[in-house]
């Protein structure tokens, strides 16, 4: 390993140690959280930015064929079913069936993100309580610095973990909410595609 990298790694280890035993779970949760957020961010790629009606017309007329995102794919699937001759209630059911995967994709990791955002401040609080216990124990024996803690280390741990818990939770909350809003909109758009495709076919 390069010396610079090694140095960085050492610093990271010191950082992790200063927060006590809650740091590693918190670290794992951060990684899972941002993986889940990244996945969700990737999953809500809409494809074209045009409205659902325009997309259906374009794909139907054959002007475009390759789907570029989730909504595009849904439109193509829906048109395939309708063009195969299924319409009315049966067509609706088939499209609903075909959309199941898209819906699952939109929902995936939603609960994970929410859970981690909920749990990480609690973990921070746990670290704070552990640090307070260390502090008060050390106050009892009047050791300012001891081999494994002491008043100073206890207080630092107490402050540090709450801070880190919030640092994990707040961005996760904000980004998660933004992605949630997008995915809700896209779920509505899937409904819209179903309605438009079926009603247009009936109207023809």
């Amino acid at each position, binding site marked *: 390993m390069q010396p610079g990298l090694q140095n960085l790694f050492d610093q990271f280890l010191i950082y992790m140690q200063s927060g006590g035993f809650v740091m590693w779970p918190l670290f794992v949760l951060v990684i899972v959280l941002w993986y889940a957020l990244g996945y969700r961010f990737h999953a809500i790629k809409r494809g074209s930015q045009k409205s659902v009606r325009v997309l259906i017309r374009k794909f139907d007329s054959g002007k475009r064929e390759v789907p570029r995102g989730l909504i595009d794919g849904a439109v193509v699937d829906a048109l395939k079913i309708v063009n195969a001759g299924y319409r009315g209630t049966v067509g609706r059911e088939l499209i609903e069936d075909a959309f199941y995967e898209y819906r699952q994709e939109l929902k995936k990791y939603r*609960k994970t993100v929410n859970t981690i955002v909920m749990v990480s401040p609690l973990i921070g609080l746990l670290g704070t309580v552990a640090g307070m*216990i260390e502090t008060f124990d050390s106050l009892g024996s009047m050791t300012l610095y001891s081999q494994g803690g002491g008043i100073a280390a206890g207080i630092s741990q107490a402050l540090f973990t709450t801070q880190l818990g919030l640092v994990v939770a707040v961005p996760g909350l904000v980004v998660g909410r933004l992605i949630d809003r997008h995915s809700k909109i896209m779920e509505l758009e899937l409904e819209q595609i179903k309605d438009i495709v079926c009603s247009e076919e009936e109207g023809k």
Partner: protein
Amino acid sequence: MKRIVLILMMAVLSLSAATETELQRAYAKEFAFLKAQKEMLEKRLSQVKKEDAARIATAKKEIASLQNDVLVKTQTSDRLGEQLFRSQQNAENINDDTALLESVALQGQSSLAPYGIKLAINKEDYPATLQQLFASTLTLGRELSSVRVTEGSFYLKDGSEQKGKLVKVGNIATYGVAEGASGVLVPAGGDKLKLWDAPESAATAAALAQGQTPASLEIFVYENVSKEIEDKTEKSVMDVIESGGMIGWVIIVLGLFALLLVVLRAFFLSGAGSRTLPVAKETLNELKSKGVEATLEFLKMKKGAAARVMKATVRNLDRDREHVEDIVAEAIMHESERLDRYGSAIMVVAAVAPLLGLLGTVTGMIATFDIITEFGTGDPKLLSGGISIALVTTELGLIVAIPLLLLGNMLNGWAERIKDGMEQSALHLINEYNKLK
């Protein structure tokens, strides 16, 4: 008679005329005398005035010179007074300095005494004394900041005394090297040393005793040899729970119970979840190749939630669409009773555990304040011990709640996905069947 009278009158008249001239003469004489006297007096007066003026002038001159004299004298006296004051201050300062020097010398003497260095204090010649003090301190400092090996003894873990070499690193750490037991030493009170429970320091001690530089220095730095370092007893998990009291135990038992429920629920879900997709696929294949009756027979052989839902679906495939969907929903509802089992219990425990922890903390705080009312705030050990115990229950509550929240939510999501999968598979089956018709 008349004549007589006349004569008399004549006589009187002549008499009177005679006296008038005499009077005038006397007056003139008197006047001349008085005038001469007046002139003489005036002359004297002016003379006296002249003399007085001269005398006053000389007196004034004299007063002025005397005043000058007084002024000069006052100034001199002020200056002298100031000088006196300054000299007194100097004398005091010198006294103070002497006392300070004496105390410094005494302090030096007493601090050097434990190292076997005797300092003679010469009250006549403080500079020499101080010079000696500084010189011996400097050599002592050099000696103390080096690593040196001496013979001595230290105490082992079991309390027995062990003779061996003592490696002193300056005045801040000591290693003991003896047969069978070596390692870093810590103060045990009363200037004795004891072996610290750190087996990895044996190599450092051995290397230092042989005058080598060890690769890594395992060290225990102490402030003072006379202050005992207590063994830090590792708190075991049981000790922590024990210190939480009744409420600590309640939290732990609840947590274990909830963990059991989590395991059971995960077991149920993995049973139901893993079989949903294969069962749906097989059912579809059977239905396509053999027909409804054969599929029903096939499903009767299978067990599990997914198979039951499929069975209900296949049995009612020929009814009208809305009816079948209702039946599917009903079948899933029936299964969800099993899938959702223990879910809410786990979440309840996750919600209750931190509250119980809070309860324990408040109880502990009340106990602490009871102690304060009884013994006052003098001893920090009493207070901080109580507060630390009070916090333990909060810690336990959080330790129980956090994994339960994580696991409970994950299991809920899993159950949700399984139900969605079942519904989806059933609907897919209906759609495929309708396509076949």
